[in-house]
């Protein structure tokens, strides 16, 4: 469908900055505040109702407002003939927030269609990259069901084992979560929050379960020069971002396929877990898939991006060799990452450049760790 009204996106940006240099520029500080508002956002292939005959429509709509602070420092802390230490660091905060949408809950994120509405939604007043799905509410236990009341633990196990696909009745005063469908009312099932309290898991029980944008990103670089040696290390990282671990949609299905070791802690009648559901072959596959916070992880990390150690030959040796300079160095990148994220790399984006599907780890290739040795010669 043609759109005769397409127009440019308009961006208005306000920057206020403060540069501060002290002690003959030995310490330089930069503070920046920015507010960037993009209006008439040009969204390609935006979902429109299918009675149009089209799946998408390119149109100008919605606004994105990004507010943020950036701070950087460049400090030559020690400057001697035999020792120099330079610190460069920057920290930034800020989030991009969408508004002016014609409707809330516009599909975005991963796999629109397969997962109805996608793993993320665009919601007026919320961040771009807002994960939208079900919140887990524990695991159904024997005591939640009428049929298991008043039995000894052995009797409960025996009753459960009689028919593992049987369904039971929740006790009268039950106020916990609900399984994905009414025919799964049984011990060991994953429970989800029933927001509207109608006893059936549906679209209205979905809520915001994570944010892909980090609260803070930072980088710190230290450089030392000690005599003819130079040494530097560079950390970077971010805090407060969530990642959808798409690989775990299968690996943590608690189903019959290859699974992560965590599935060894699945609920069993003998060892009733309160955090992992039972293993069930019918958990798997598209019709039974529930997008929940089980697949959302904290993507905060600190990474040692680079360490370099170098040695330059002293001037008198160079003169003998008729060289201007000669430096040996050894350098390592991606040496370690401190993170709670269980996938390969918490610093991910589904397609690399799609700003409407931030923070999805879909089997992304892991970052390589590299150790390099080198020699720089200047004739």
């Amino acid at each position: 469908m043609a759109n005769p009204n397409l127009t440019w996106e308009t961006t208005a940006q306000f920057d206020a900055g403060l540069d501060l240099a002290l002690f003959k520029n030995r310490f330089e500080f930069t503070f920046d505040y920015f507010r960037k508002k993009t209006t008439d956002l040009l969204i390609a292939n935006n979902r429109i109702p299918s009675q149009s005959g089209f799946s998408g429509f390119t149109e100008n709509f919605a606004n994105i407002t990004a507010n943020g602070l950036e701070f950087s420092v460049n400090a030559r802390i020690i400057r001697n003939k035999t020792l120099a230490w330079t610190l460069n660091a920057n920290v930034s905060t800020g989030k991009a927030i969408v508004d002016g949408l014609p409707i809330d809950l516009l599909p975005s994120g991963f796999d629109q269609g397969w997962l109805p509405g996608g793993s993320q939604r665009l919601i007026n007043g919320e961040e771009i990259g807002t994960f939208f799905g079900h919140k887990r509410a524990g695991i159904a236990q024997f005591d939640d069901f009428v049929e298991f009341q008043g039995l000894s633990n052995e009797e409960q196990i025996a009753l459960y084992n009689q028919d593992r696909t049987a369904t039971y009745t929740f006790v009268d005063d039950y106020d916990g979560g609900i399984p994905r469908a009414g025919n799964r009312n049984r011990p060991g099932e994953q429970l989800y929050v029933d927001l509207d309290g109608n006893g059936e898991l549906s679209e209205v029980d979905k809520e915001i379960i994570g944010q892909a944008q980090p609260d803070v990103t930072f980088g710190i670089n230290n450089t030392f020069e000690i005599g003819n040696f130079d040494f530097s290390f560079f950390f970077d990282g971010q805090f407060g971002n969530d990642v959808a671990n798409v690989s775990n949609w299968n690996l943590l299905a608690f189903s019959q396929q290859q699974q992560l070791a965590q599935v060894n802690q699945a609920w069993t009648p003998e060892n009733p877990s309160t955090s992992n559901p039972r293993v069930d072959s019918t958990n798997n596959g598209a019709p039974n898939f529930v997008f929940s916070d089980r697949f959302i992880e904290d993507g905060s990390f600190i990474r040692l991006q680079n360490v370099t150690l170098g040695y330059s030959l002293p001037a008198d040796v160079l003169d003998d060799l008729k060289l201007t300079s000669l430096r040996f160095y050894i350098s390592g990148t991606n040496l370690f990452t401190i993170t709670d994220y269980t996938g390969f790399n918490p610093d991910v984006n589904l397609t690399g450049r799609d700003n409407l599907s931030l923070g999805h780890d879909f089997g992304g290739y892991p970052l390589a760790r590299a150790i390099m040795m080198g020699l720089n010669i200047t004739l």
Partner: protein
Amino acid sequence: MIQIKIDYMMKTKYLIGALLVALLAISCEDFLEEEPPNFVSTDVFWVSAENARIGTDAMYEPLSDGSSNAVFGRGWPAVDVGTDDVMSRVNRNNFADWFSHTINAGHPWLEAWQTYDNHWTGIARANDVLEFVPRIAMDETEKNALLGEAYAFRAFCYFNLVRAWGDLPKVVNSIDDASDFNLPRSSADEIYTEIIIPGLQFAEENCVDELHNGRMTKWSAKLILADVYLTYAGTRRTSQGEFVQGDASYYALARDKAKEIIDGSPHALITEDFVDGEHITPACGVPWLEAQPYSVESILEFGSTNVSEFGSWLSRECSPFFHGRQYWGPAGGMPLVSEGNSGRVNNELRFPGRPPATGFYIPTPDLYAHFEDGDERRDWGIMTRYDTPDGNTYLCQPTFRKYVDIDFFLGAENTSFLNTNNNFIVYRYADALLIFAEAQNEADGSPNTEAILAVNEIRNRAGLSDLASGLSQNEFRDAVLRERRSEFHGEIKRKFDLMRTNRLLSETSDIKVEWTAEEGSLQDYTNKHVFFTGNEVWPDREWLYPIPQTQMNLNVNNNWVQNEGYGL
């Protein structure tokens, strides 16, 4: 030193805009007026009779496309899953919710499979034909025939949608801006009386009077219209959950419309067997022979082409299992590989083409048991055995023949599950006969001679004798409905039949789900999905499907209300 910097700027795009303005000033106009080379715009396309034909052909594609989202090539047979005719094989979970009757608005069949969406794409393309073809200077008869095709095709899409989803937005314009599709849902009655019936009435007057070749003809329109009348006369449930009795006066309309086809069309029932060497296809199966599509019996047939990636996926989805071992019974029951070789056949118990055992749509034992003794439609239509070139007969898992490209199953060269040419016949001359018989009996209170003849024509073709004479209205109604089940098995008519005759609950309350030895197999066996108990209560809400959840979200400002019983 302290330096303070404050700047404020309106950025980027204005700058580029200004550059463009500058360029304009120094360029000649011809240079700037370009025809975009990478797509054909509406303005340049709808200009000739030839393009009008191409544009009209394009509307069929969303329903017959060879892709994973094909409607008649893959997803639509699921309408009958869970009835007494069609089930899925064990552990095939795609339609588990059909058996447990827990369908929800987020199910992939509604969303990713695009069963709902593709009908709308077809409607949009038909609307384009209706909008743009009238502007083309061309022969008026030819033009009206194309418009008739578009009206008939649009009506057919709406007919499927309204039976499956109930209330619908009335999208009747070529989409130009959002107001053309941002519409509330209108009642099913309005869809029938304002879009479907008038559209088919235009089509029956203006479409070509020819045999069917994949495009809507005068006779396609009349037959769809007869089915619409028959359906509208029967029972249904609304999106609000109300039970509607239907307007019985439409039976007479259905009777007369079907009669027009019987009396006036060039179509007929095929009564000759087809003999190809040792293979004999009984007459009842000849319309489905891949080698001779669009037979004299076909009145609406969606094509599938034996070109890689363009074939129908149904051969794949209807294949129940890799081999026939369980069906043979214990290992000792299997035949010897050959004389003097004490090994038992194993791999031979599968079709040589090795269809993937997807098993979405397989026949129920209930359907198999429904056929009368001697009914050729059973042994042709539900494959339970096949003859190999070495002269052995092997048992295979029961499979709908109508869904299969037999060349692929038998391993012919250049075939694969994407590479098949089994067309889907939606309507054929047999529909006219049985619609006439049923509608005449309802409209006139008892069967007349012609109605009895119509049923007997179908029965005789299948190798059965005439109906008993002197049947009452009720007895004849039962006989026609039984005949429909046998004749149209696998043709996605069962659930719609059960709904319009208000038998959906009764006919699905006691379904035979286990095969017993005498039914072609060497032993009792089951291949049913674990949730298919055969006696689940069909809930009232599942007369209709829920509107796909994504569509509910996208239509929130159009005040759509979800079909009754499916939550929000």
